[in-house]
């Protein structure tokens, strides 16, 4: 049965202004001239959906954009990148970050205190859309209050319709109770935590033990990201370490979003869990080779060619 979209990607959309070089005596002067100022569209769902589109998936974005010209401008940009913006909600002021990059490369973030609870209010979730998607990818549990409260119910309905549910996450910082998190896990097919997040959740230090505990809560597969060490993956067929790919990293911003996008896109193309994790690893590694979150990865063929060059054709697994 052909569904309109492969993936619904849900999460944040942020406007980043990157400015450099910023002198540290800026506040002693009236004005400083800098060499460059770039506007980037960022945010987990914005990054993920952009990469999914580049990898050939039919993706629809669910996010909150500012109810202002800036927000509308960002959505027009996302559409130009091949992302359908049918599940966008316009609300409040567009979330904006200023990233001041000093002469030595250090980054200082000035973030707009967001007054909103983010995408994820009960009315933001489109239950009719569940008939038209095959996968949901949640950019991050633990960023948007609204999402944290209402995701379990949406994931449950999704699974009932045969939609595969995938979630990335960030650290909880004590905001959501473990009980509430486990409620989401009941209806999550795959979770992609970092080693630190998995440790915080489970109290374990061994990745396999972390994965076992998380799987006991519901997920049928867990990928624990180990940064430069690659990842540890486990499902019903067992656990295995996936090596990182050899690259020369220049900028690791957004690597996690690229990894998640690669994983879900591969699943949507019929890859097995193991194959998809390998593909995700290649996408995540490749993404670090250029400055910016969505600049390095260009296409599905580019990733496959790279994987074969490294002697790691996913189809050979």
């Amino acid at each position, binding site marked *: 049965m052909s569904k309109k979209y492969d993936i619904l990607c849900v999460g944040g959309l942020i406007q980043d202004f990157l*400015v450099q070089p910023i002198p540290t005596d800026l506040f002693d*002067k*009236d004005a*400083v001239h*800098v060499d460059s100022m770039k506007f980037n569209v960022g945010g987990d769902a914005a990054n993920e959906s952009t990469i999914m589109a580049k990898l050939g998936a039919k993706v629809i974005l669910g996010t909150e954009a500012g109810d202002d*010209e*800036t927000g509308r401008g960002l959505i027009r940009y996302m559409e130009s990148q091949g992302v359908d913006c049918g599940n966008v909600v316009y609300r409040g002021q567009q979330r904006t970050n200023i990233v001041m990059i000093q002469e030595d490369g250090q980054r200082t973030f*000035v973030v*707009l205190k967001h007054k909103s609870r983010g995408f994820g209010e009960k009315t933001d979730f489109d239950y009719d859309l569940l008939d038209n998607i095959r996968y949901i990818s949640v950019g991050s549990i633990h960023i948007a209050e609204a999402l944290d409260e209402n995701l379990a119910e949406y994931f449950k309905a999704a699974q009932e319709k045969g939609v595969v549910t995938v979630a990335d996450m960030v650290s909880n910082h004590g905001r959501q109770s473990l009980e509430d998190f486990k409620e989401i896990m009941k209806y999550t097919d795959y979770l992609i935590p970092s080693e630190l997040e998995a440790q915080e959740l489970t109290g374990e230090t061994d990745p396999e033990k972390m994965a076992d505990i998380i799987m006991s809560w519901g997920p049928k597969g867990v990928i624990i990201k180990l940064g430069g060490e690659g990842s540890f993956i486990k499902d019903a067929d067992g656990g295995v370490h996936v090596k990182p790919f050899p690259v020369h990293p220049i900028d690791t911003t957004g690597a996690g979003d690229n990894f998640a996008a690669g994983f879900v896109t591969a699943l949507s193309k019929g890859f097995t869990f193991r194959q998809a994790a390998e593909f995700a690893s290649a996408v995540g590694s490749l993404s670090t080779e250029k400055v910016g979150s969505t600049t390095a990865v260009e296409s599905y063929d580019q990733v496959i060619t790279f994987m074969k060059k490294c002697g790691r054709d996913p189809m050979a697994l």
Partner: protein
Amino acid sequence: MERDLDVLCVGGLVCDFMIRPVDAGVFTREVSYMEAAESNVGGDAANESIVMGKLANKVAISAEIGDDGTANELKAVFAKSGVNTDHLIVRKNKKTRTNIVLIRPDGERHFVIFPNGYDEFCGKDLDYEVLSRTKVLSIGSIHHLPLLDPALPAYLKAGKEAGCITSADMCPNLGDTPNEIVVECCKYLDYLIPSEGEMRDLFGEDWTPQEAARTLRNWGVKHVVIKLGAEGCYIQDDVYDEFVPSFRVKAIDTTGAGDSFAGGFLTGVLKGWDLKKCAIFGAATGCIAVQSIGANTGVKSYEQVLAVAKTSPDWKE
């Protein structure tokens, strides 16, 4: 004379993206939070045209702008002030030139200014066709747009030939335009409204207002107004040779004061007032402008400025 427009303002337009509160503490943290972030429009032609719009003139702005969300936001601001935006020069696929303004908790500001993808406003962008449809041609500032400077003498000449009243403000010659171009502009200027800084640059440290004005008139300018900041201004033409005092007030923010003065001054020119009456009205406009934060926020209406102008002992109905 029956013309569509009272004035065409040609020159600079920039978005000031203002964030607060920020201070040097940002460099001690990885992430800091700002309470508010908003876009305001600035730039000599933008400020002048908004003030003139508020003073009930039929005004159009000719300046570069991008075609992003910011551009739409700024066009809405112009529309609210009655400024015609049909003559904006839209740079396709470019972001609108933006400065970041960091506002400290005590209200002091620090500007982060950077080069953008355009800022190429030059001779071939100038609209000659509109000249026969406007009463006044106002150049935001000789020297603000270095690429435009060489084209100004021919444009002003065409303005005169089309029957316009011509006016120009000035700003510091950071682009090193040869003085010959200023001299050439003077041949075709009814009004020149520089500040003391530009006079010092042209005539040296020993300049005096009387001699400077005489030289400018010898070069061709019919009416000279030299702005002297809080001290007021000096005016010279065939009838007047005197200082016009400012309206003494406590300045809260002098950003855009000169542009506001010019906007009020030209409003008087359009009403056929003599040089002194125009200068008093300009001073009243500037006085209101400096009592408000922002480059073009103080002036609300013609009646508001008139009420201040009337308090001058030299005001004649």
